[in-house]
């Protein structure tokens, strides 16, 4: 038996197929993963993401601490409630984790980090927090439900605590607001609008069932993966890890090199890496039938002219691949030599298959962003 969220029993009685996910017993699907995917793109679906780790950082010097800890710069967070996506790096520039930080007040920032990295994250954060007098508190008392889709907000609002209903409609994208013991954020991992709701663990089952009664479809980790990949969002452990830095993981946009005087952990290594160049993370669309999967090898198509005169052959590897239910085509993120494409070959079970390099995201707000 693995770790279980406060909603485990609700999932089992709701017919979920349970799998092990990083030590957690989590729902893979409640029947059809593809139908759950479409529910999120077309209407509203919800995910139990209580396995993720909520960490409250409090103290007078929290902002100063986070400016050292994170590769993105929390100085950008000037309006209370606003959130920022960032990597947390080791001194070599490798990604310890990716996370969202919500600015609540000068003495309170909230982090949401991945489930599988919980222990090492807490250790790393605590080690550095001590120098700043920042208190690190893991909120195991909270559950988290992500409600996502074009109708997610309108269907969810009537079920929020009374004092939150009107205010929740005013929450700006990529912001989060506390309402007593509830916290409602307009963030997500699907490329659709919606909320991520943190709430007391004892309220989670009732909230889940009420949301379901509103016509919000329970969705499992299977749909969560196809949705995030269509949205061009990285998965920690697949698309980046401690051996890969953000610049080769499609996350250069999350690294704040300016202002130059801000010191952050990993900065020196990233500055060197930026000068050296290196592989890049790109999107792939398979032009043939089949499914792209992690670790499939990518090579230059014979039609590519960039191959001529190069010391090292152009090459790459799929980091996340799946079948896109929205596009009805296999898509992937792949780490490849810079300059590869647009035509490439992917080795699927020993046979080369034609694929095309594209710029993610593949799908946003229900619409395909690439031509098929």
């Amino acid at each position, binding site marked *: 038996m693995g770790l279980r969220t406060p909603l485990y029993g609700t999932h089992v009685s709701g017919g979920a197929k349970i799998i092990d996910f990083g030590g957690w017993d989590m729902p*893979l699907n409640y029947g059809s993963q593809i139908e759950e995917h479409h529910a999120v793109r077309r209407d509203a679906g919800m995910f139990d993401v209580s396995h993720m780790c909520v960490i409250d950082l409090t103290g007078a010097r929290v902002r100063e601490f986070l400016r050292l800890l994170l590769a993105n710069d929390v100085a950008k967070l000037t309006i209370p409630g606003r959130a920022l996506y960032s990597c947390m790096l080791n001194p070599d520039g490798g990604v310890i984790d990716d996370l969202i930080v919500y600015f609540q007040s000068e003495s309170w920032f909230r982090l949401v980090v991945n489930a599988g990295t919980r222990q090492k994250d807490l250790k790393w954060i605590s080690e550095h927090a001590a120098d700043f007098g920042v208190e690190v508190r893991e909120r195991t008392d909270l559950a988290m439900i992500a409600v996502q889709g074009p109708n997610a907000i309108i269907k969810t609002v009537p079920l929020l605590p009374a004092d939150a209903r009107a205010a929740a409609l005013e929450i700006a994208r990529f912001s989060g607001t506390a309402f007593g013991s509830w916290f409602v954020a307009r963030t997500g991992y699907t490329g659709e609008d919606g909320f991520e709701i943190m709430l007391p663990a004892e309220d989670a089952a009732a909230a889940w069932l009420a949301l379901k009664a509103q016509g919000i479809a329970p969705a499992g980790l299977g749909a969560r993966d196809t949705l995030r990949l269509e949205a061009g969002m990285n998965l920690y452990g697949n698309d980046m890890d401690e051996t890969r830095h953000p610049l080769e993981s499609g996350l250069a946009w999350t690294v704040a090199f300016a202002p130059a005087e801000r010191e952050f952990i990993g900065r020196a290594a990233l500055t060197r890496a930026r000068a050296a160049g290196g592989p890049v993370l790109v999107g792939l669309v398979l032009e043939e039938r089949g499914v792209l999967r992690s670790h499939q090898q990518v090579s230059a198509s014979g039609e590519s002219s960039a191959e001529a005169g190069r010391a090292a052959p152009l090459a790459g590897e799929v980091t996340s691949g799946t079948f896109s239910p929205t596009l009805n085509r296999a898509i992937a993120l792949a780490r490849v030599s810079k300059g590869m494409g647009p035509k490439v070959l992917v080795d699927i079970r020993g046979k080369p298959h034609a694929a095309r390099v594209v710029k993610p995201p593949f799908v946003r707000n229900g619409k395909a962003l690439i031509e098929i």
Partner: protein
Amino acid sequence: MIENVPDDLQYTKSHEWVRKLSSGQVEVGITHHAQESLGDLVFVEVPQTDRHVAAGEACAVVESVKAASDVYSPVSGRVVASNADLAQRPELLNQDPYGAGWLMRVELDAGAPGSALLTAAEYAKTLDAAE
């Protein structure tokens, strides 16, 4: 009939089924349990007709959103037909694994020893044991 394990078919431990046709040929597919474990199927690669398959040999690939899985031929013989509908509609395999989701029809090798296939009851027992 045991739930989702039709009596009139034979089975393998690796979750294929075999149906004897009146022509003497056999039809092959994957079981209800197999499609359910795989989840929504999105790609099916069926064998070329006229290809010879040996019992236990990988003869088809079924891919779900989750994973790719080989299908092993339960019999030895020549593939006389494969289900072309699955190219466009792999979901047939989820919806009707014992009917419209069939994979291939095989003309058995003359004189080939009958391979050790399971009855419905024996196959159902392997599923119970795995749970």
